[in-house]
């Protein structure tokens, strides 16, 4: 592998930084500002794409920036593994930029300059993570990524958003601390932290206790961003961020940087052989397997679409970690290929969720029956991506899953193949109902969803044998109070509501009243004895639609904030969403939403299909094979 000195890796990282400056400078002219975002994204993608032929040919472009701390250089190098992540991040940033424009303008969001600037910074940091050529350089950009994405998580400025932001910072800085500790251990034992394909030689002969500790710290630290159980819980809460953020960052850039870090540790710091010798590969694969299954099961119970997608992301990320933990060449190929495969598919899904939110203010699956009539292209793309997530052929998810299955059998651990197959079934379990009810059902005859509706352990039984549910008690209280004057603080979630006063930000987000609602609508909203989700949450969408169309960002923000607050299904949650009283209206092709959003949705879905049909043609598989060949010596 030859190296040549080049400015292009550095330029690829600095261009988004320059983009931040131009975006902030043009904050008074939104169209110019958006133009700068697109231009920067285009330029960055161009730079990264121009490096692909060289990397495929075996030449690595290296930008040397000098010594950072004694013994460690700050160097950016476009090696095959880095190129996978960089190409993915820059290509999808371009797609997401268009989507962001449609989304932010569709919701008339506040602080758009901060949003676009932080976005550019995040992608720049992600590219730095991709091109970093040693653990310390990786750590630098890893921390910068955390700082750059924090404003995006807390963007809403609601209580939920701030809480989510705090949790995010705690978890990711905690992970960073572990990475730092592991890096110091590696440097102390071997005297180098540079990424060497096949692993740093001295680690193979180092003290196994220290080596294992270093591996645990590094994998654990990177595992926080890779959302491994038990350090995954920041991700569902981070869904309070605007959907393009959830899509690109928390399905593509940030979480993939965590997985990428694990990949670097397994392939370029320790090397597959040493990982196997130390015996740490199997525990890693085991944790990944547990994450895959548990996260999928939790996903089954989520009514909020974005939360369901979040748990799906947690589950799918561990496919990659599983591949890395199994260590056989086929598994490594499968795991690494799943990085772009999952990215395209998950981005499509998130884009669809965001489009649905912008167009209909619907966030919950129980409200989405028959929405295929209203948003055909969106739901079609959703269907395609879901097929891929389940691992069915023709879409990207199949190829990586195939390699993973072969790899787990190669490694002699058939149980992991079983885990993968079960996961596929679970994926079908939580995606199929959405697609089916969207196209083949209407709000009136939508199927019930017992997994989502009922509490864990089933409905509770009263001590005298009669049946009761938690919600029943509260609806009694509500009825009692409704007959009185004002609803008082009864049950756990009612709060005194005074429509005349401005909303206090201290209000429990579960029942955040809007200024347009009066007492009666609130009571109607919280009634709980219907059999179907739709009955239990009668849509006042028609009444709210008039106000919603002219909605200011406060409502939109509070809505996004509240829809995330429920963990259980019998919570009261705010409802602007759901079908209008007359049912979903039929929209023709291209009429369901702006092309700013539909375009990226179709591009991402097409990318997922293309990756499934021509994996090598789409460059990624070729890069992956190169990586595995260099790391293991086996050409797969």
């Amino acid at each position, binding site marked *: 592998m030859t190296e040549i000195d080049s400015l292009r890796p550095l330029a690829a990282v600095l261009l988004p930084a320059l983009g931040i400056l131009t975006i902030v400078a043009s904050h008074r002219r939104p169209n110019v500002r958006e133009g700068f975002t697109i231009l920067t994204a285009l330029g960055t993608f161009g730079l990264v794409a121009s490096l692909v032929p060289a990397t495929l040919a075996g030449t690595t472009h290296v930008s040397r920036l000098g010594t950072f*701390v004694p013994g460690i250089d*700050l160097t950016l190098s476009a090696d095959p593994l880095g190129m996978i992540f960089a190409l993915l991040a820059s290509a999808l940033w371009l797609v997401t930029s268009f989507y962001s424009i449609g989304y932010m303008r569709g919701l008339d969001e506040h602080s758009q300059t901060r949003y676009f600037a932080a976005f550019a910074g995040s992608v720049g940091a992600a590219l730095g993570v991709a091109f970093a050529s040693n653990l310390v350089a990786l750590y630098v950009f890893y921390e910068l990524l955390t700082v750059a994405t924090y404003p995006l998580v807390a963007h809403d400025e609601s209580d939920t*958003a701030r809480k989510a932001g705090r949790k995010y*910072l705690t978890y990711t800085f905690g992970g960073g*601390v572990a990475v*730092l*500790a592991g890096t*110091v251990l590696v*440097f*102390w034992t071997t005297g180098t932290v540079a990424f060497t394909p096949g692993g740093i030689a001295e680690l193979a002969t180092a003290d196994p206790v220290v080596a294992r500790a270093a591996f645990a710290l590094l994998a654990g630290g990177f595992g926080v961003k890779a959302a491994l159980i038990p350090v995954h819980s920041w991700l569902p809460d981070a869904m309070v961020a605007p959907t393009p953020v959830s899509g690109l960052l928390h399905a593509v850039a940030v979480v993939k940087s965590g997985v990428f870090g694990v990949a670097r540790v397994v392939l370029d710091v320790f090397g597959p052989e040493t990982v196997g010798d130390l015996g740490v590969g199997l525990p890693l694969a085991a944790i990944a397997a547990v994450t895959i299954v548990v996260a999928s099961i939790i996903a089954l119970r989520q009514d909020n679409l974005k939360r369901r997608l979040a748990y799906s992301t947690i589950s799918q990320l561990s496919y990659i970690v599983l591949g890395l933990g199994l260590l056989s060449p086929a598994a490594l190929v499968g795991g690494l290929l799943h990085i772009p495969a999952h990215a395209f598919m998950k981005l499509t899904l998130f884009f669809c969720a965001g489009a649905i939110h912008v167009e209909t203010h619907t966030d919950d699956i129980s409200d989405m029956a028959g929405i295929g009539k209203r948003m055909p292209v969106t739901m079609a793309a959703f269907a395609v991506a879901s097929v891929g997530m389940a691992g069915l052929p023709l879409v990207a998810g199949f190829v990586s899953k195939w390699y993973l299955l072969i790899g787990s059998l190669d490694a002699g651990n058939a149980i992991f193949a079983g885990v993968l197959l079960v996961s596929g079934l679970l994926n079908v379990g939580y995606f199929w109902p959405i697609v089916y009810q969207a196209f083949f059902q209407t709000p009136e005859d939508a199927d019930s969803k017992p997994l989502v509706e009922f509490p864990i352990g089933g409905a509770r039984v009263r001590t005298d044998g009669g049946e009761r549910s938690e919600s029943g008690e509260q609806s009694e209280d509500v009825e009692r109070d409704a007959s009185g004057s004002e609803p008082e603080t009864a049950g756990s979630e009612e709060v005194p509501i005074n429509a005349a006063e401005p909303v206090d930000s201290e209000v429990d987000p579960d029942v955040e009243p809007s200024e347009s609602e009066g007492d009666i609508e609130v009571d109607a909203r919280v009634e709980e004895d219907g059999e179907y989700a739709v009955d239990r949450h009668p849509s006042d969408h028609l009444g709210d639609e008039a106000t919603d169309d002219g909605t200011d960002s406060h409502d939109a923000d509070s809505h996004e904030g509240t829809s995330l607050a429920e963990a259980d299904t019998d919570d009261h949650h705010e409802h602007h969403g759901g079908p209008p009283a007359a049912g979903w209206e039929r929209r023709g092709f291209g009429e369901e939403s702006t092309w700013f959003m539909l375009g990226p949705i179709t591009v991402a879905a097409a990318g997922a299909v293309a990756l499934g049909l021509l994996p090598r043609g789409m460059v990624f598989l070729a890069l992956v094979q190169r990586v595995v060949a260099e790391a293991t010596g086996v050409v797969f």
Partner: protein
Amino acid sequence: MTDAIALLVVVPIVLALVPIALGRLWDGAGWVAAALAALAHLGLSVTVAAKVFSTGRFTYAVGDYTPPFGIELVTDGISATLVVLVSVVTVAVVLYARRTGPDSNSFYSELLLLTAGISGVFVTGDVFNLYVFIEITGLATYALVATGRSPAAALASLKYLLVGTIGASLYLLGVGYLYIATGTLNMADLSTQLQAVGYDSPLVLTGFALLVVGLAVKSALYPLHTWQPGAYAESPDSVTAYISALVSTAAAYALFRLVYAVFTPAFDAAVPFALDALVLLASVSVVVGSVLAVLQSDLKRMLAYSSVAQFGLVIAGFSVANATAVTGGLVHLVGHAVMKAGLFVGVGVLAGVAGGRTVDDLAGVADRAPVVSAAFAILAFALVGVPPAVGFAGKWHIVLGAVEGGRWGVAAVAVVSTLLTLAYFARVVERMYFQDAPAATTDTVSGPDATATADTDSALTPDGGESGSESTDDAKTTGGSGITIEARTVVVAAAVGAVVLGLFASDLIAVFEPVLEVYFQ
């Protein structure tokens, strides 16, 4: 010229007399004298630094009396860097204090005395001379803290006076013990003499203990830190910026010189318990300082406790007796000075804009002061340890040194300190950016408009009620938002400096290396 090293102390002292002498006749004498002194000091320090970087360490015998009887001034890479730091901070504070802080002749006089004292601490090579300069520093600082003019400031100054004098007296006692044991006060001479006397002699051990405790008081290590929060919080913003950057830094530097130039690593080898105890104290300081910082609602107190924690980290680095950790401690010493000064000036500005001094008062202030808030956020994250800023470089070396020395506890504490520092800074940044300002409902009152509608909402009065010296005339020069150009420049320069220092940390370390090589032979 070799006299530059002595002039570093002399020039500020002489120019400190000017405001007193001319003060009756001319009100502006103070600032002019201070500005002249700051510029002269900068020139001198650069000259000294240039000499050190080209020819290496050099010494100067004061009054041409040869050591060990005469007083010797010594400059090597470390002290040269720190002297330049003093100049830079002096220039910045003199600039900043013109419009923000107390603008009185006595203030500038005291400031120049403080400059002289701190410069003396950094260049002296004699332990008793060090005491003299520590006392000069202390006295000037007590006076400066009291310029706050409030009862709380007077009380804080008194507390500092009492505790600081006790600390300095303990230091003096320690010097006395060493003098009795060896008969010399010169640092270089002491190192050989102490070895001859024997490190486990009770005199020597007691001397060490007294010296360390005295300097720990001066550098505000837990539990001897109690003077610091009050002193920082009640003094004027310009004073806080100066003393947080330099006073405890000088004490920590003195500790470093004592442990390595006077007692040498051989002492640690003979009596490991001594530095072990110091490591423990420092580590506790890191944790407790951070926890106490989280509990504060007053911003300046929070930053004061942050200093307690950061100096714990620095001294932990000094106490792990290997070159890497000491390098880390020194880098963090320099970096922390820059960052803390910037943070205090930033807090002063933001508190003025927000109209209050607590964390909650800063809600939504980022809209009204975007540049200063951004610089503040950068400095905050730099102190947390986000690379490539200088906070990371120091931490990396301390952790690496601790691991190399087998001190896993220190390594763990240093690594976890990132999270602890994050705990108290994240909530400030969150309030600044992600909460709405309380009085403004949906529209934030923008700067230039505010002067016109200033009568409507006093909470948003843009000329910043806190800092007393601002008048409506200033509104024209400050762009209506109450932030002076100088203040903005200082904070932004600090932020840029923190990042640049971090990027060029290896160059800074290359300057320190020759000195440490000598100590760790």
